[in-house]
């Protein structure tokens, strides 16, 4: 193994000091002279026709500078694909979910803007709503959009091998209905931005996880070329997919107000606004049918998904794709059929969230596999050894795995004391569970998918690093700087990474699908190599050797064959920049992959560049009298190829695991006719420090050939493996399989009562 100087080291985050000092500026921390405040007025109905909007009273309130409504956007709508652009900045004609944005006010201060929204008079005609996807699919259900039938937002199908034949050949076949809950990303920083529209076009300082989405949205909405759209990225208070990967009403309205008034316009959402209106994870019903041989070999899986899409399409088609295309990992699966239906309802919009798409179907398949293993008398560990894929592997839908540490991970867990406690203590409500998962990293889809890096060598040998990739908390800035520093033989402090400014940084798809480390990383390495190539020319001239002879290490340039012959990196930079009329050294690189076969309609081909594998143990303690349960311990054996920064990778996995624990035991939106009944952090129960175990992470090193320095993704795999691991532990503790998430104390209590009754009846 090659010895690295900064790669693989537990180096502090490049932004750590700013953050602990409170100096890191987030979108809401900025203010500009003459700035106006934008406030959104929202619908009191989940489904209603807008008959009339009278803004005159609001407009005449002193301090109010402008009021806008849906019609001011001239019919423009946005969406994930051309045929699904169904979402307007502000509702036009009708509202489709409770608290959808209807109008907005710009005023000299936020108090006035808030007051003015009360003065906007909107006449509604309430329409019957539909809030359950199975109800919404029925003929005659209220139609939410005119452009689809039966409220079917999207469908996606995969059919590989011959599932019917395989079921016939199976020794046992099982069918179950699973359900996942309505949960949210839970970032603590509500969406916020300041917009400025002037002769240069649009500038937006916004809390965006994928700023180049917003850049395209604003260009299209305001009919401007892309070079007139400048998104400047402050620090971002986390994303996890969904809302911060998209635009929000406040973005469009603030820009419009700035265009009208010539003044900067700021908006900040409230947490209750986020928890009522923001994008959520799709809740799904999964009908799962699995066929297995007596020895535990999985022969076939067929899943039918009904996903609640809420009121608009958003990124839903991709969700449907991922629920299927990734189900063929992490176990060998020769026959697979998948039918997914995304259904519109009058609930808030469903979209991406960490573990996108995969968390639902993997939960179902994982639990079902365990149920069947139990029927066959096969140990949960053994059934995984039996079916786990090993590299190299190609799934039936041509997903190619080049590195896989799953079996090694399982072996590692098998030897823990935790696993040895499995099945030993159910009388006291203690239980240990196991699960595994795979997740794609370096998402590759259709459309623009390349990441780029631009390195500017300063004359003193330091480097300015421009990337379009966003660090929204995951630590990518640190890892990217490590890669550049490693490649150039520099120290961390020699490389200065700039936050995204779409006028300056190279275009980037965004921070989703665990793509930054892998693809922006690949670009960074290439850009650094470009710099080295240019500098080597100058060094070679100095030393009269071939450029190929030059190496870079320890802030120095060397001659490979004569390591004593060296010169400080800074000196070489100076020579390069000042010799003759002076060179300007810029390194550039972008990530690319070949045009391999990829069929979006059939779920065929690689959705990622590489695939992480997670094996996870969870131990729970259930209070058998009250149903209150607690995860006391969890261990991940995690194959991320190679952790480039162990602190970051582990922290990502800790966070993904606890978020997964939230959706397993604690979190769920409680709805009433489209209205969220628990839109506060008191009632929407994200776990706190007193509710969670320390997460232990064991790295399984596999050095993926496609990763920069062997790296693959981290944290999306463990949010997928956590729910089935915890559910398996609950089974060990209570003897009951829970098929509906979240498994709340009350659910556990009633299930225990039911079990008691059944035991008595027997």
């Amino acid at each position: 193994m090659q010895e690295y100087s900064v790669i693989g080291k537990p180096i502090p985050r490049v932004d750590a000091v700013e953050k602990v000092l409170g100096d890191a500026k987030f979108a809401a921390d900025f203010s500009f002279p003459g700035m106006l405040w934008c406030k959104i007025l929202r619908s009191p109905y989940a489904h209603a026709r807008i008959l009339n909007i009278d803004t005159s009273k609001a407009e005449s309130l002193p301090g109010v500078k402008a009021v806008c409504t849906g019609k001011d956007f001239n019919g423009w709508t946005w969406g994930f694909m051309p045929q699904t652009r169904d979402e307007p900045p502000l509702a036009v004609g009708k509202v489709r979910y409770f608290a959808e944005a209807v109008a907005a006010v710009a005023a000299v201060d936020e108090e006035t803007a808030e007051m003015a929204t009360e003065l906007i008079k909107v006449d509604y005609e309430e329409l019957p709503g539909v809030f359950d996807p199975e109800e919404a699919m029925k003929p005659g259900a209220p139609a939410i959009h005119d452009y689809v039938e039966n409220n079917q937002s999207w469908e996606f199908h995969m059919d590989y091998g011959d599932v019917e034949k395989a079921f016939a050949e199976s020794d046992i076949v099982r069918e179950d209905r699973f359900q996942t809950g309505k949960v949210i990303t839970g970032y603590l920083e509500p969406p916020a931005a300041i917009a400025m529209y002037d002769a240069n076009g649009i500038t937006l300082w916004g809390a965006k996880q994928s700023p180049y989405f917003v850049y395209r949205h604003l260009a299209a909405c305001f009919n401007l070329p892309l070079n007139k759209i400048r998104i400047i990225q402050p620090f971002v208070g986390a994303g996890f997919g969904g809302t911060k990967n998209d635009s929000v009403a406040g973005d469009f309205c603030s820009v419009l107000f700035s265009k009208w008034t010539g003044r900067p316009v700021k908006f900040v959402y409230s947490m209750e606004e986020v928890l009522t209106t923001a994008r959520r994870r799709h809740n799904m019903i999964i009908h799962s049918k699995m066929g297995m041989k007596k020895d535990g070999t999985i022969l076939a899986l067929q899943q039918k998904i009904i996903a609640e899409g809420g009121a608009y399409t958003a990124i839903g088609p991709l969700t449907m794709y991922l629920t299927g295309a990734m189900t063929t990992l992490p176990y060998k699966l020769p026959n697979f059929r998948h039918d997914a239906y995304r259904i519109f309802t009058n609930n808030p919009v469903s979209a991406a969230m960490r573990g996108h798409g995969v968390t639902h179907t993997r939960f179902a398949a994982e639990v079902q596999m365990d149920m069947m293993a139990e029927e066959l008398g096969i140990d949960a560990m053994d059934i995984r050894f039996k079916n786990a894929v090993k590299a190299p592997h190609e799934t039936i839908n041509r997903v190619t795995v080049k590195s896989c540490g799953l079996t090694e991970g399982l072996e590692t867990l098998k030897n823990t004391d935790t696993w040895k406690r499995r099945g030993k203590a159910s009388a006291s409500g203690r239980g240990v569970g196991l699960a595994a998962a795979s997740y794609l990293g370096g998402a590759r889809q259709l459309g623009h998918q390349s990441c780029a890096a631009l390195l500017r060598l300063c004359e003193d040998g330091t480097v300015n690093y421009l990337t379009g990739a966003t660090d929204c908390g995951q630590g990518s800035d640190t890892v990217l700087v490590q890669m550049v520093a490693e490649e150039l033989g520099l120290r961390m402090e020699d490389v200065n990474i700039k936050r995204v400014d779409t006028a300056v940084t190279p275009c980037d798809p965004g921070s989703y699908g665990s793509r930054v480390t892998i693809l922006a990383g690949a670009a960074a390495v290439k850009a650094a190599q470009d710099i080295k190539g240019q500098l080597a020319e100058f060094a070679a001239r100095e030393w009269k050797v071939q450029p190929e002879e030059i190496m870079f290490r320890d802030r120095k340039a060397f001659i490979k064959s004569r390591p004593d012959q060296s010169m400080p990196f800074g000196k070489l930079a100076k020579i390069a920049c000042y010799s003759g009329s002076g060179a300007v050294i810029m390194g550039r690189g972008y990530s690319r992959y070949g045009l391999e076969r990829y069929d979006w309609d059939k779920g065929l081909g690689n959705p990622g560049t590489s695939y992480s594998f997670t094996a996870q143990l969870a131990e729970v303690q259930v209070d058998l009298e009250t149903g209150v349960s607690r995860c006391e311990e969890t261990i991940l054996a995690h194959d991320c190829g190679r952790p480039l920064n162990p602190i970051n990778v582990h922290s990502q996995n800790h966070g993904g695991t606890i978020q997964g624990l939230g959706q397993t035991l604690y979190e769920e939106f409680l709805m009433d006719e489209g209205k969220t009944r628990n839109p506060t952090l008191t009632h929407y129960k994200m776990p706190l420090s007193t509710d969670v175990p320390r997460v232990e992470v064991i790295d399984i090193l596999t050095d993926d050939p496609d990763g920069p320095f062997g790296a693959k993704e981290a944290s999306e795999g463990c949010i997928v493996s956590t729910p089935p691991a915890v559910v398996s532990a609950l089974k060990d503790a209570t003897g009951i399989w829970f098929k509906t998430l979240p498994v709340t104390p009350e659910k556990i209590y009633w299930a225990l009562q039911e079990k008691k009754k059944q035991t008595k009846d027997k």
Partner: protein
Amino acid sequence: MKQIEVTVNGKLEKIEVRPSETLLEVIRERLHLTGAKEGCGVGECGACTVIMDGLTVNSCLILAVEADGKSVVTVEGVGSREKLNPVQEAFVEHGGMQCGFCTPGMIVSGTYLLEKNPRPTEDQIREGIAGNFCRCTGYTNIIESIEAAAGKMSEGGES
């Protein structure tokens, strides 16, 4: 409008405030100390935590007029770039943060905890930061950071 006198990070500030302004708004918008964050605005998330007269409080729940005559310490006042406090230093070294939005509140809660209890148990650390949500880290590295800070402080005390 009412004139208040409040000592913020050791500096006496005389400010005219409206009764409806919260301490958090005044700190952020008048004094331009934007370290304390508004996550929820209703005393749940802990991102706006400051120390007022020796006790941690949610500054979003306190009217600025209530802070008249009080002493307030924000994240900007617990350490400096030249000299991070032990909790800040440990957060840097042990990765006690990711996005950084909860971090100012966490640092203030962690600092307060170690002032009151220099050698907390793990459970006491958990209780000490139970008023501060973090969605990124799963708390593991935050707890380890505070443990490390406590360790370092007691070492320092003994030497």
